[in-house]
């Protein structure tokens, strides 16, 4: 594999081993029943590595064939990542359909806003178009899923720690990718001869850290759906506007104090 440094080879190999461990854990502990999309994601990541090893060995790491092979397979794993994380979120919130509905809207909102921006940016930069699109994807992902995690916290919903760690891992990986894309490749390092290696190394190191956390989390079984009490939709429809009206009244009373505080002419 010419063009690939020893450090990159080691970290890539280690990531592959960790993914294999995760795959074995998924099969051994039957996580595929509760996490089918995640199992697919890990499987596709392993398949990508299996496809890329002979390509890199034959054509070299820095070659047009390697570039094409990487990006063609990367798109598939990125789609798998999106599906896996959305399924995870759905499973985590299946006991809370109202909050899932809210999360889904937040995801769509983030997708529309960030993809719109990324599309505009990617079109204006031909040389780095692919990189901007890549960054846009991870930004969308990070914004949408961090917002969902914030919603989960806001409503004090306890989701299974395994789901939480897996979703957080995806978010961390996306934030890391977004940061490295921004700081390294598209900004500082474009004039630095070894920027590609720095970019690849940081990308792989973040992924490695996420994989370690996933291995630890997946040793535990995933909680099955629990019977939580339910409020009827009618109760919410009546309750929410009335309570908001009362909160508004209280706020208005407090506002009046500040008005009285203002100097009189």
């Amino acid at each position: 594999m010419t063009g690939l440094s020893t450090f990159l080879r080691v970290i890539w190999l280690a990531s592959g081993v960790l993914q294999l461990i995760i795959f074995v854990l998924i099969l051994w502990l039957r996580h595929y029943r509760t996490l089918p999309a995640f199992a697919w994601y890990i499987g596709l990541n392993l398949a990508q590595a299996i496809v890329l090893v002979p390509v890199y060995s034959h054509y070299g790491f820095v070659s047009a064939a390697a570039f094409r092979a990487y990006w063609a397979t990367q798109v598939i794993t990125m789609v798998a990542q999106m599906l896996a994380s959305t399924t995870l979120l759905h499973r985590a919130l299946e006991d809370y359909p109202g909050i899932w509905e809210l999360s889904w809207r937040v995801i769509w909102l983030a997708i529309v806003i960030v993809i719109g921006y990324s599309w505009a940016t990617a079109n204006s930069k031909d040389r780095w178009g692919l990189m901007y699109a890549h960054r846009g994807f991870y930004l969308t992902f990070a914004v949408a899923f961090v917002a969902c995690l914030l919603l989960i916290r806001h409503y004090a919903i306890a989701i299974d720690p395994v789901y939480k760690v897996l979703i957080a891992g995806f978010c961390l990986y996306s934030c890391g990718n977004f940061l490295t894309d921004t700081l390294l490749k598209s900004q500082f390092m474009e004039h630095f001869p070894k920027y590609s290696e720095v970019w690849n190394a940081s990308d792989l190191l973040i992924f490695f850290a996420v994989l370690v956390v996933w291995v630890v989390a997946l040793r535990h079984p995933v909680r099955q759906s629990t019977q939580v009490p339910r409020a009827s939709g009618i109760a919410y429809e009546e309750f929410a506007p009335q309570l908001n009206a009362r909160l508004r009244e209280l706020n208005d009373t407090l506002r009046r104090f500040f008005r009285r505080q203002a100097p009189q002419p």
Partner: protein
Amino acid sequence: MTSTLIVFSIVAVLLIAALIWALRRPRRVSHGNFDLESLEQPGRRHATYLSLIRRATSNDDLVFLSKRGYKKLQARLHRERRKVVLIYVDQLRSEFERLTKMARAVAALSPSVSFRQEFERAQLSFEFLARYYAIRLAFGWGFVPIAQLSQLSQMVSQLSIQMETSMREFGERAAAAVQTASSPLDGNGAGIA
């Protein structure tokens, strides 16, 4: 290029900070067993102490001390009153939070929630918090004159009574809504996934 770099770096740092904050262990969680009893509990009986608070924060005492020339005592009384008001305002905030927590509990357990209502509540909470901190700052640093102190005390007392009434009313209704709907005899109950 530099401005883009700064903006995106700030976005990345904010995202990571939000992620860390979101992953912190919450103090109380709704692990399928909401504390329904806490929803039914009324707030503290502010009405019981209202006359005492009004008496304690009336301007008459301060005017009397000022006329008699007890400046030190007057300053001390002012400090003490300020503390009382701050405790009262803190209490008010905790009750406002209890009300919003109640609303969140009902929303979390409902099969469908309104984006508009949830957004409005978040906005109201933000406004309330902003005013709460403004009052704390003004009183903590002594920006508010003595005359305003008793005015605010009365206002806070009224707010507390309003809050207490709301807590009682909505607490009972929230708990009833959740309990009734979770009953196996109810068609809107646990069958909704």
